[in-house]
């Protein structure tokens, strides 16, 4: 990559309300180069992309594109100049046709009117170049995500994009679809297009990227050819510390203690096509069970089904050995189950209500006396949990939306803990919150389990699962494919199960692995 970079940025700063999101970030990409951009949630990847493409204005820094200093004022501006972005969620118009989604804004015309024939032909051609052959006149919404993504890429290329930024494009794709996408990326690279590729799947990065930029806490912490950075180094740079053998939860509580404990919640072969295809999980008293799997593997869907938030078409749920079927969350709550959604904003906080009301929302039915809230008890409970969880706030009457992410999450945990649950399902409880709060929440989960609470923990961070869980159930394509316990819980074993789906229940080690763990139970 001796040539002059196509895009070069340096000294990039960006703050939100005084909180820095980017600090002196630099990155460059040359034509025909595929650069990996990686970092944990909140490391600043999305902010960097948005600053580069004109969604946000940077506070400081220089951006050069194709040799000229640029300052894009909008995505439109960036797009016109050859910088296109494929966003995490497919950002197209669902009810419009595939062709229109590719061509809108610059459709071919005849006599001043859009020439649909030409537009459709062009769209067909552009998709064919990506080896996608579909009826382009159908609404986009009728196609699977992979096709929608290809549509987005075709649209980007139709603007003669010189640089395409792909923000986690593979997160909701099936394996085969990923392979197609990687092929497309290679093809684009060979045609001289520069690509910035954001993904959390290391295999993909190593399969397709030439160079890598690693962000951590808003700074560039690594910038090198990807071949010079081993996976181990990559992960440790990204996490910001030497990857030691994570201490295992199994060492805190004797695995035997929970193994003998009674089963409190069990899901058998839950099904609801296409997201759930036979997911099973058992949870014993005082146990922390992890649910691992890639995005779209059915983790959240399993949790929601257990909680009665979504229906299932088949399968059984047992609570303390009794078959149950929760028609709604409040029935699950009555059975002393709590569920904290991964979508804190969308399904967690009630933004306009105070911390007090947010904490006691799930407990509300039990706080009522003839329909009226028992203020004294409410206050006592709220105070207790604010202290217990060390929630930082001005007072219980403060609106929850004014708290930081970590404190909001603690309020939501308090919402469930104050109902005195026996089972708590936590979906990505530490996503997007600061390191301190994350540690606190992890410690709390441990303490609670030691006190006999059963926790089902969903996390995308393998390390968190290794650290916190007694057992890990791995899902793939909506079905349980592996169950790991104790020493067998390792990144390798989980990754293998997620990717291959082979490690059947009981069989513990991936084939050809160096990890020859001894059987310990």
């Amino acid at each position, binding site marked *: 990559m001796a040539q002059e970079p196509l895009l070069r940025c340096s000294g990039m700063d960006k703050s939100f309300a005084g909180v820095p999101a980017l600090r002196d970030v630099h990155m460059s990409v040359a034509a025909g180069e595929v650069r990996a951009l990686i970092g944990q949630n909140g490391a600043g990847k999305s902010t960097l992309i948005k600053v580069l493409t004109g969604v946000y204005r940077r506070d400081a820094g220089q951006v050069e594109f194709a040799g000229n200093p640029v300052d894009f004022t909008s995505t439109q501006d960036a797009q016109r100049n050859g910088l296109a972005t494929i966003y995490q969620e497919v950002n197209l118009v669902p009810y419009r046709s595939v062709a229109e989604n590719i061509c809108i804004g610059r459709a071919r015309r005849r006599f001043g009117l859009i020439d649909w024939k030409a537009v459709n032909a062009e769209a067909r051609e552009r998709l064919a170049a990506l080896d996608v052959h579909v009826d382009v006149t159908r609404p986009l919404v009728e196609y699977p995500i992979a096709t929608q993504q290809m549509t987005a890429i075709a649209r980007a290329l139709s603007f003669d994009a010189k640089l395409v930024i792909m923000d986690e494009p593979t997160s909701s794709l099936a394996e085969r679809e990923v392979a197609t996408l990687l092929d497309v990326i290679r093809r684009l690279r060979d045609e001289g297009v520069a690509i910035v590729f954001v993904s959390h799947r290391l295999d993909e990065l190593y399969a397709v990227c030439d160079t890598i930029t690693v962000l951590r806490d808003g700074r560039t912490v690594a910038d090198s050819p990807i071949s010079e950075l081993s996976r181990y180094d990559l992960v440790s740079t990204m996490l910001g510390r030497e990857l030691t053998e994570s201490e295992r939860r199994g060492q805190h509580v004797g695995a035997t203690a929970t193994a003998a404990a009674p089963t409190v919640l069990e899901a058998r072969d839950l099904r609801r096509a296409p997201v759930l295809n036979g997911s099973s999980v058992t949870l014993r008293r005082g146990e922390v069970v992890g649910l691992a799997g890639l995005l779209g593997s059915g983790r959240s869907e399993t949790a929601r089904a257990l909680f009665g938030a979504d229906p299932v078409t088949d399968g059984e749920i047992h609570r303390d050995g009794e078959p149950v079927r929760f028609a709604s969350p409040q029935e699950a709550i009555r059975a002393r189950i709590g569920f904290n959604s991964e979508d804190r904003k969308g*399904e967690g906080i009630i933004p306009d209500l105070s911390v007090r009301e947010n904490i006691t929302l799930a407990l509300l039915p039990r706080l009522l006396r003839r329909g009226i809230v028992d203020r004294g008890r409410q206050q006592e409970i709220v105070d207790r949990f604010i202290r217990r969880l060390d929630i930082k706030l001005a007072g219980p009457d403060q609106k929850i939306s004014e708290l930081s992410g970590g404190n909001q999450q603690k309020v939501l945990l308090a919402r469930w803990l104050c109902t005195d649950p026996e089972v708590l399902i936590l979906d990505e409880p530490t996503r997007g919150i600061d390191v301190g709060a994350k540690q606190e929440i992890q410690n709390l989960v441990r303490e609670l389990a030691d006190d006999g609470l059963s926790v089902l923990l969903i996390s995308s961070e393998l390390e968190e699962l290794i650290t916190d869980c007694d057992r890990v159930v791995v899902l793939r394509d909506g079905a349980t494919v592996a169950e790991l316990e104790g020493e067998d819980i390792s990144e390798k074993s989980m990754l293998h199960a997620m990717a291959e789906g082979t490690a059947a229940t009981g069989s513990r080690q991936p084939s050809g692995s160096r990890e020859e763990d001894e059987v310990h139970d």
Partner: protein
Amino acid sequence: MTETATAGPTSPAATRRPTGRSWTGFARQYGAAALLVLLLAYNAVFTRNFLSWQTLMDVQLRQAAPVAIVALGMALVIAVAGIDLSVGSVMAIAGQVGALTVLGGLPPALAVLLALAVAAACGVFNGTLVVRYGVQPIIATLILFIAGRGIAQLLSGGKLTGFRNPGLQFLGLGRIAGVPMPVMLMIVVAAVLWFVVRYTGYGRTLLATGGNTAAARLAGVRTGRVTMVAYIASAALAGLVGLVVIGITAASDANNVGLGVELDAIAAVAVSGTPLTGGRISVVGTVVGAVMLRLLQNTLIAQGVPREIAQIVTGVVIVVALFLQRRAR
């Protein structure tokens, strides 16, 4: 202890908030009230006999009361991110049912019950469309807005239905402790709602449902039922106001009872600083908004400003309220 908590690095928003934006925050919260006070002060000085019981109670408040009561119901529906366009038609139906019942020789108490029951049924209809079928509130309530007046007209045969019934007229013309019935009803309804919002479980679930339906459902709130109750309450209050209006004139005019009241009610809620996006309600603010808008009109007209210009001022006040809300975001 509070100080150390706010000083914590994780809650910058808590400490940052008030400075610089305080006046718009104040204006948003108390703008309508401030304008009301201003109007009262102005009238106290320049309008003869304004501060008399007669003027305040029998003119200003009594005129504002019907819209205020409807607006309170509307505020409930808006709190769950809905809207109720059908209130005017429901008023007409309930008024007609009430009038026909007493004309049929039945006791006024039964007339009131029957009218309220029919109104509540209208609310069930609206609520069912919204909750069960997921129809957008505007369209769901537009159906009854269109059909409802036709139903009232069919009941009346399009004619003015006059009646003489002291019991039913009491709702419009009676007094309790010297306070005109419409005003009394407004006060009672507002007090009950204020209590409900502030102290009851329903109040909590109402705001939770409107603020974030998905989150409320996951926290075990029966969001559908909460929404349904809001629509029923709105329709029942509209029905009550329908009875008040026919009580005042001793006649039910299906063509005109409640005409355009939905917009007045929404305006009253809007000037109280409540966004249409749900999750918030201000009971006192809604009453203040309704009274203020009425007094604003009356004052301008009394000052010789043409009625039509007064209407323009109302429109401008709404836009200003919107701007203040926007700033507060």
